[in-house]
């Protein structure tokens, strides 16, 4: 009996030991037995690159991109391995900190991406040719503080007011040319029991995005951005406070219960024709069309309230970079060069229905073409993303929280502006002098 007892115990230990060793063997073993049918390493010299990204929805489209790349580089295999957008950064950061990660990294624009470069996790794209086709503004989204280029810009995103063409036509409405016309238009819709503006305040990022559209009309677009980035003005200035006040006044044109509405809700309101206008980004065009294929979407640049030019808000929304710890940097750089070609840009524009970061690439989609033309003429940057995505919490996140507070009646426009200024002063160099 006693012996048996001890035996049991030893059995247990051996079991655990066996399991522990089985672990390390397991990897090779299962790969052989299960074997992915498509990719047996028949050619030993073939190199496999992995791309990390948050765009799970684009998997099929990237396969076409990779096929195009393989026409000229048949011996470089590329795998697109996206993860869920909300957890992408956690996954990527963990892997990078442990010296791992995908060979090619889909980089968030501006501050977060540049932070990775500054921390030494990215390979500078020194020898990569063809990057000069991109405008300086696009390259800035992934330029390190050391002045080196770390990413190839992929796409521009724009935010603007979308509208339902049918609703506008049925009610005899026209695209507004001034802010007053815009307010009048919204009032007319409201009187006709149509929700004028599909926007909710449940998710903070919707509010900073909306401010990116409405704000420039009040603070005066590029001129103000230039001044504030030099530290010549700040967020407490009347121009900026006015832009917040304007956001507050617009709430009467929002749907019922707007404080409880998130992205899915407002998209549905617009797609179903319940709401006439939708202050949103270009990436939503295809999603709305997917919900309601019959919808005719138009857009208009936001007319200025202070007599300036109407604006459309645009910024680089993503770049591709090379992992400094990649074992195949040369091959990855070849892929970078491919990303900077006109062939890729054209393929991208047509397949993804997005605006390429490369100027002068025409899309087959009328709406997208309209947007990219507007970008070249009257664009203003998404100031909070391009210049104020630093700090902790970021100034952008602070603006989101405070705008949310304002819509809930817990914060004044002046108070919101003040909080953003206080936050920016903790990290934004021009404010610290």
């Amino acid at each position: 009996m006693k012996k048996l007892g001890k035996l049991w115990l030893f059995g247990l230990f051996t079991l655990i030991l066996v399991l522990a060793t089985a672990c390390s063997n397991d990897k090779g073993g299962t790969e052989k037995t299960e074997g992915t049918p498509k990719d047996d390493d028949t050619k030993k010299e073939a190199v496999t690159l992995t791309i990390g990204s948050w765009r799970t929805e684009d998997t099929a489209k990237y396969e076409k991109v990779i096929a195009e790349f393989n026409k000229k580089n048949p011996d470089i295999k590329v795998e697109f391995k996206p993860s869920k957008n909300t957890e992408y950064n956690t996954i990527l950061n963990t892997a990078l900190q442990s010296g791992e990660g995908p060979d090619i990294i889909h980089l968030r624009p501006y501050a977060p991406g540049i932070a990775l470069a500054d921390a030494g996790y990215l390979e500078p794209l020194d020898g990569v040719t063809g990057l000069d086709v991109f405008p300086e503004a696009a390259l800035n989204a992934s330029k390190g503080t050391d002045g080196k280029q770390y990413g190839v810009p992929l796409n521009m995103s724009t935010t603007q007011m979308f509208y339902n063409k049918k609703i506008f036509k049925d009610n005899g409405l026209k695209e507004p040319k001034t802010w007053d016309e815009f307010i009048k238009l919204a009032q007319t819709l409201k009187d006709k029991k149509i929700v004028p503006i599909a926007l909710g305040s449940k998710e903070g990022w919707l509010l900073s995005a909306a401010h990116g559209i409405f704000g420039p009309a009040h603070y005066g677009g590029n001129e103000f951005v230039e001044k504030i980035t030099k530290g010549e003005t700040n967020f407490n200035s009347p121009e900026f406070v006015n832009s917040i006040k304007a956001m507050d006044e617009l709430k009467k044109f929002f749907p019922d219960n707007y404080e409880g509405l998130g992205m899915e809700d407002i998209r549905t309101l617009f797609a179903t024709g319940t709401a006439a206008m939708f202050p949103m980004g270009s990436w939503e065009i295809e999603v709305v069309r997917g919900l309601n294929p019959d919808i005719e979407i138009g857009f208009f640049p936001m007319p200025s309230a202070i007599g300036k030019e109407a604006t459309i808000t645009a910024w680089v929304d993503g770049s591709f970079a090379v992992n400094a710890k990649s074992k195949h940097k040369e091959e990855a750089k070849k892929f970078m060069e491919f990303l900077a070609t006109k062939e890729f840009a054209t393929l991208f524009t047509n397949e993804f229905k997005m605006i390429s970061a490369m100027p002068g690439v025409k899309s087959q989609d009328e709406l997208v073409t309209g947007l990219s033309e507007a970008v070249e003429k009257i664009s203003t940057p998404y100031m909070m993303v391009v210049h104020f995505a630093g700090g902790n919490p970021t100034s952008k996140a602070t603006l989101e929280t405070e705008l949310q507070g304002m819509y809930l009646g817990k914060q004044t426009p002046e108070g919101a502006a003040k909080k953003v200024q206080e936050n920016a002063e903790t990290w934004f160099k021009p404010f610290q002098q």
Partner: protein
Amino acid sequence: MQTEINPEVITQKTHKKRKRWGIHLFPIPALVIYGMFIVYPLVAALAYSFYDWKGIKKGAFIGLENYKNLFTAEPFSGMFWNAFGHNFLYFAVQMVVQNGLAFFLAFIIYQKIRGAEFFKLAYFLPRLLSVIVVGFLWKLILNPNFGALNVLLGKMGLENLKKAWLGDPDTALLAIILVNCWFGIGFAVLIFLAGFQAIPKELIEAGRLDGAKGFTMIRTIMLPLMMPSITIMTVLTFIQSFEAFELVYAMQGSQGEPYRSTDTLAVYFYRLAFGGSTGDSTAIGLGSALAVVLFIFISIVTAFYLKSMQKKQVEM
């Protein structure tokens, strides 16, 4: 409890010693796995709290600077106390609503009502779902315009009770906690039921013969014998409410929206350590410091509670 006081045959003593040696192997497998995959990584990560971090790159050793900032620098200290209050509410509501109800429901099932099996299953079913599924499902149900709850209220003629449940800072946190109760009640019922069933029948019979009835019976005989399961649920609820993360994150994201009204310490930690969802900046040093503070707080309270419970049990 004590085996050694047993005055039985002293000849067995040598025997026992040998046995005693073997017994010390019992906790080893658990300790090895636990030590390797919980203690080691956490201790390694705790050191982060003493360093300055530039994004995800470790900087210089700065001693207790992060701890100081956590409690003195705005907005960090404001967010800390705001979240702390929410965790406390989380605990209070869960104790009363989830555990209170579960105790009662377990008692009903213990009364051998018909369909007891069905009820047990029904209460437990939500616990089978992943928290992501739970969060998503309830987000839909609580949706102000299309959601089942408001539609239902409308049909019952209670138009003025309709609300943007998750968008209103007055109701958002409570709504999440109640969803958590919905999710967790089945487990509490099981624990309490196991507790009721562990009460020796003879004691209840004895009590009945002594004339104990109704609540006297529950208070004087059942409640003391239920203390192990009550202790388990209290400790568990305490720890889980102060670690509340997944459901809040699934329903409201990492910013504690709206307007920080649903922020909890663990969500705040996540935001600091991993940044927001779109690659916002991280503050790993501060985040680790927060985790340490949270850990110290929970462990002190738990130790204190367990100690006092043990004393009570000894007194009994």
